[in-house]
C-alpha cells in the first residue's frame, strides 16, 4: 500500500530573514529581499513556493506581507503565524473560510463521556510512546509506566486521568536523564521560565510542535480552543495541547535528545537567560523543519509518512472520532 505522495511536504514555510517581504506572483509565494541596495546585483528573490502547496507560513521578527498577498492567503486558506526573532509566538492571521459549522457543532456537542474516551486514548498513547522512547535509548525497567498506561485506559473521570498522566510524566522525566550524553543532565521539568538549557529546548520544541498541531486542527476545522482534557482557559489552545500529548515523547523529546546527543546544540549556544542565541536558533529552526519532513514507516499503516503529515493524519482521525465517523480516537503509538 502506497500513501498518496507529495502532499503536505512543503506545506509549512519558515521565514527568518529580517527585512524580507512576502509577495505573490504567477501563482507562487515569493520571499523577496527588500533591503538590497539598487546597485547590489544579488538576486532579491530568496525563495518561492507554489501557492496551492503551502498552508502555513511562520515568520520570525521583521518580515512583512504585502496586502495583495494577504488577499491571496485568505482565498487560498493559508495561515500566517507571527513569532519574535527567537521564537515567541505573537499571533496569527487566519483565513475566513475555514469554519464548517457541522464539524464545530459535533465538537461542541461531545458529551463529557465522549470527551473522556478520546482523552484516555490520547494519554494512554502518550504513556506508551514515553516507554518506547526510553526503551529505544536503552532505558529499561519501565514497567511502572506500562501499569500507568493501563490505568489511564480505565480512568473514570478526567481528574483521575490527569492524575495518572501527571504521575506517568514524573516517572518518565525522572529517567530521561539517562538518555543524554555526558555534560548534560536533566534534573526536572521546569517551565516559565525554563531553568536550564535542556528545559529551554524542550519548551521551545513543545511550542513548535504545538503550532504544527494547531495548524492541523485549523486545517480540518476543529476548534483548537475547546479541549477534551486540558481545561478550557481563555486564550489557551486546549485541544491542540490534548492532541499534542502523544507526540511529546516520541517527536518532541526525541528531537531534543537528538540535537544534544549529536552535538548540534551545545551549552555555548545559549544566552544568559537560557535562550538560544540568534545563530543557534536559526540552526534549530532548520533542523526542526527537516525533522518534521523526515519520513518514517507508519507503525500501523506501514507506508512512509513524514512526521508533519502524521500529525495532520491524527487531526483527521480526531475529526472522524468527533463526528462519529470512527468509533474512537486512534492515537499514533509506537510499540518499538
Amino acid at each position: 500500500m502506497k500513501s498518496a505522495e507529495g502532499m503536505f511536504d512543503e506545506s509549512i514555510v519558515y521565514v527568518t530573514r529580517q527585512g524580507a517581504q512576502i509577495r505573490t506572483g504567477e501563482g507562487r509565494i515569493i520571499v523577496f529581499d527588500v533591503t538590497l541596495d539598487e546597485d547590489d546585483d544579488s538576486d532579491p528573490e530568496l525563495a518561492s513556493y507554489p501557492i496551492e502547496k503551502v498552508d502555513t507560513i511562520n515568520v520570525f521578527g521583521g518580515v512583512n506581507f504585502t496586502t495583495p498577498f494577504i488577499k491571496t492567503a485568505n482565498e487560498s486558506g493559508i495561515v500566517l503565524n507571527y513569532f519574535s526573532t527567537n521564537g515567541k509566538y505573537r499571533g496569527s492571521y487566519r483565513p475566513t473560510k475555514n469554519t464548517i459549522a457541522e464539524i464545530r457543532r459535533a465538537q461542541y456537542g461531545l458529551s463529557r463521556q465522549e470527551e473522556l474516551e478520546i482523552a484516555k486514548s490520547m494519554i494512554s498513547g502518550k504513556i506508551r510512546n514515553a516507554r518506547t522512547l526510553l526503551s529505544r535509548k536503552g532505558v529499561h525497567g519501565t514497567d511502572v509506566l506500562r501499569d500507568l498506561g493501563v490505568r489511564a485506559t480505565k480512568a473514570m473521570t478526567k481528574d483521575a486521568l490527569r492524575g495518572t498522566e501527571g504521575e506517568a510524566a514524573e516517572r518518565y522525566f525522572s529517567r530521561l536523564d539517562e538518555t543524554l550524553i555526558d555534560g548534560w543532565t536533566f534534573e526536572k521539568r521546569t517551565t516559565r521560565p525554563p531553568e536550564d538549557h535542556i528545559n529551554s529546548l524542550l519548551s521551545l520544541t513543545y511550542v513548535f510542535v504545538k503550532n504544527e498541531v494547531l495548524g492541523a486542527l485549523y486545517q480540518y476545522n476543529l476548534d483548537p480552543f475547546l479541549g477534551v482534557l486540558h481545561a478550557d482557559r481563555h486564550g489557551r489552545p486546549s485541544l491542540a495541547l490534548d492532541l499534542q500529548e502523544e507526540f511529546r515523547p516520541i517527536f518532541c523529546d526525541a528531537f531534543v535528545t537528538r540535537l544534544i546527543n549529536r552535538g548540534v546544540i551545545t551549552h555555548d549556544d545559549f544566552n544568559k537567560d537560557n535562550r538560544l542565541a540568534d545563530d543557534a536558533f536559526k540552526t534549530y529552526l532548520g533542523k526542526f523543519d527537516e525533522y518534521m519532513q523526515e519520513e518514517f514507516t507508519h507503525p500501523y499503516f506501514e507506508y512512509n509518512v513524514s512526521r508533519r503529515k502524521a500529525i495532520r493524519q491524527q487531526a483527521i482521525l480526531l475529526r472522524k472520532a468527533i463526528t462519529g465517523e470512527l468509533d474512537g480516537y486512534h492515537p499514533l503509538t509506537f510499540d518499538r
Partner: protein
Amino acid sequence: MSSPTTVGQRDELVHVSALNEYVYCPRRFYYQRYHDEIGTPYELIDGRSKHQNQSNRGGWVTERYFRSDELKLHGKIDLIESDSEVLTPVERKRSESGQYYPSDEVQLTGYCMLLEDALDEPVNVGYIYLYSTDTRHAIRIKERHRETVRKIVSRITEMTVNSLPPFTDNPKKCEACSARQYCMPYETALLEPEKAQGTGWEDRV
C-alpha cells in the same frame, strides 16, 4: 418560465455537475458538500481546459445557465449545437483513457432534461465530445437515463450531514480519488475493520 428562485429554493437545486460527482462516489460528494474537503476537483480541471478551447462559431450556443425548480436541477451547459432547429447539448471531456463513463452519460442526461424543460419540447440526443481522440459520441437519452437522474437528484436532496455514505465498493476509484487522504478507506479498514465491511477494502489490508 416559473417565478424567480428564492434563496431557500436555490439551496435545494442540484447542480448538474453534482450528478457526476455523486455517481463517482457518494461519499466523496458528501465530503465536498459538508466538509469542504477535497483536493482539486476534477470537474475544475475539466472546466479549465474547456475554457481554453472556447469556440463561438455560428450554429453554437455557449455557456447558458438553466434551472428548473420542477426537476430540482440547475447548471450551465457550455455548448449547445443548433442544427436545423434541433438543439443538442454537448458535454466535452478530457478523458485521457479515450472513453467516456456512465457518469458522463448521467451528466449529459441532466443537461438534456434541463434543456427540454426550458424549451418545452423533447431533447432525446446529446453528444459527448472527447478531446483526447477528437471524437463525438451521440447518446440517445432513454427513459432509464432520465430515471437515473431523477433518482440521483432525490438522493442528493435527501442527503443529510448525519448520513455519511459508505466507502465505494470499488477501491480502484479510491486510487484516483482526490479525497483519498481525508477519507482514509485503507486506514479505516485497518483501524475499525467492521466499518469497511463489504467495501472491497477489507480484503486489501
